[in-house]
């Protein structure tokens, strides 16, 4: 075990996968200097054929990722901030998500589109989105939202080895939370959720950046006798709701916490599944703690007002555990 921060865990996954398979190539803007630190040292280790700085040309880069993957490489494209996925959206939505299907299953597209997502640093509206919901809606791409360093590493390794395109989004900018990461070659299975904490009173499902504050709140509430079960879905696509539904049979109460905007979010999908398949277990309405349908503002008090945090998670849990029907 090593104690790593999110960004270091990503770096070690990239290093290990590039060493393991010479077909893995990495490119993106300033991946040599590495704005966030996650691609640091890779150019020195793997050389200019496999690690390339590119011009600022997202429309081209996402399309090139599709072409290089179709022609036999495992491509990791670093898009820096998740908002720049929008800039390069066309080839993700119209090519990567559809090419295999449209061509009758002829090709495999092993691509990881990676970026740093989320707010909290006053980076304002064009550098703070958590856009996983819109990729969920494409159908043809996996979506990874790891919430811990161990998962950041294990999920990235799985995504690189997988033959499908993956949108891989991590929060935390240049650092992120620290956590224990296994030294061995551990991959995190695709589409498998995880019970991060057992409990009996309420189920909380945090997504990506919300895992850590949720666990902190759960710990705190345990001292008061409120027993919180935390299910981390890890992958938004394929979305594994089995543990969530199982947990509901025990708790009957559900809060989904997501740093994406509310409308058509991952939280609304999970809430819909709970209402549909977990209906008979529910003792209270399903709550979605999300970002209101707004752009992320710059000034700290404004940003705090729109982003979910530990305080809001705690308030939602308290409200739901004391909820009495009728």
């Amino acid at each position: 075990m090593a104690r790593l921060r999110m960004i270091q865990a990503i770096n070690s996954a990239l290093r290990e996968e590039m060493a393991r398979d010479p077909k893995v190539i990495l490119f993106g803007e300033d991946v040599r200097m590495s704005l966030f630190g996650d691609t640091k040292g890779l150019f020195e280790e793997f050389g200019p054929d496999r690690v390339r700085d590119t011009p600022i040309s997202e429309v081209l880069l996402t399309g090139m990722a599709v072409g290089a993957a179709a022609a036999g490489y495992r491509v990791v494209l670093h898009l820096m901030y998740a908002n720049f996925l929008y800039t390069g959206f066309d080839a993700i939505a119209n090519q990567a998500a559809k090419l295999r299907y449209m061509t009758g299953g002829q090709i495999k597209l092993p691509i990881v589109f990676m970026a740093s997502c989320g707010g909290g640093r006053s980076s304002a509206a064009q550098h703070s989105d958590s856009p996983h919901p819109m990729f969920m809606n494409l159908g043809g791409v996996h979506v990874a939202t790891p919430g811990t360093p161990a998962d950041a590493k294990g999920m990235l390794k799985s995504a690189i080895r997988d033959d499908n395109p993956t949108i891989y989004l991590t929060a935390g900018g240049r650092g992120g939370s620290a956590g224990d990461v296994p030294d061995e070659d551990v991959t995190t299975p695709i589409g498998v959720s995880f019970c991060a904490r057992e409990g009996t009173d309420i189920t909380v499902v945090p997504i990506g950046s919300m895992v850590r504050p949720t666990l902190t709140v759960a710990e705190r509430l345990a001292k008061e006798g409120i027993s919180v079960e935390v299910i981390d879905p890890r992958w938004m696509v394929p979305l594994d709701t089995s543990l969530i539904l199982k947990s509901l049979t025990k708790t009957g109460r559900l809060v989904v916490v997501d740093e994406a905007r509310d409308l058509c979010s991952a939280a609304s999908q999970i809430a819909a599944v709970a209402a549909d398949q977990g209906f008979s277990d529910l003792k209270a309405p399903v709550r979605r703690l999300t970002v209101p349908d707004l752009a992320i503002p710059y000034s700290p008090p404004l940003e705090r007002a729109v982003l979910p945090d530990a305080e809001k998670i705690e308030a939602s849990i308290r409200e739901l555990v004391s909820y009495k029907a009728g």
Partner: protein
Amino acid sequence: MSNKNLSKDELLSIYRSMVTIRQFEERLSAESKSGILPGPVHVYIGQEAVAVGICAQLTDDDWITSTHRGHGHFLAKGGTPAALMKEIYGRETGICGGKGGSMHVADFSRGIIGANGIVGGGIALATGAALAAQLDGKGRCAIAFFGDGAANQGVMCEAMNVAALWKLPLILVCENNGYSEFSKAADVTAGVLSDRAKAYGVPSEQVDGNDFMEVWRAAGRAVARARNGEGPTFLEARTYRLHGHVESEHTFLPKAYREESEVEAWRERDPIKAFAAMLSDGIASAQELEAIEQEIAALVEEAAAEAAADPWPDPEAAFKHMFA
């Protein structure tokens, strides 16, 4: 101003404009490094002659779009310095009420469509504003300021194609400072940028972006073409940013990405010093220039003090302004 020589008053007002940008940003740089400013800050120090040289040919009715490095364009086009400072401090009194910060300063009442966090994002917006200006038929024009890095976004070529076909009053001002973040232009940009315009039949010029007069004259020709319905112009201004890409970069970069000697050489070619030297050659006295510098220093001091004392936005304000 476009076809005559500049009067002493005009020259001094240009000096004032360049010094305002410089001093405000020196203050912002210091505040950013000491952690007072909430978000990332990209300063324009060393490139002032470009924004001021172009904007000195414009009126409030013309449009500009800018970049992540947008304070200089905002101020040169007549944006209020204190309102800029307060925005970057995140205060309620900022030009965007604290919603945008450094990368989104805008003042539509002065034709400033605004800074932009998306590299290349402003180019298409300026092209649209140029279309509107053409439809209005009042001789307005639109200017897209963007970097050498942004010139590698396909939209730059797409904009030139449409602007050339439709004879839009668009001026593409590419500020070639030799770097896209930490990448040298030689590693990410092929050919000569101003040559890209030739392929579309768009008249283009390369100018010394650190020489106010050269920028100003080229801007005069481009603006005249635009106002006369002769279509777009591409200007490549060779310049240099004397500070880092972002003020916090020393805290996270593993190593330097440019030679100190290179920065020093460009510091010798400081556009404001060069302009001051020109003025000192028989146009204005050292005292006159110093008086301007002191006047601006007082303005900066006042704006910063006000910004620090002004209220933070009410959290409820976060819920306003999504839709008209």
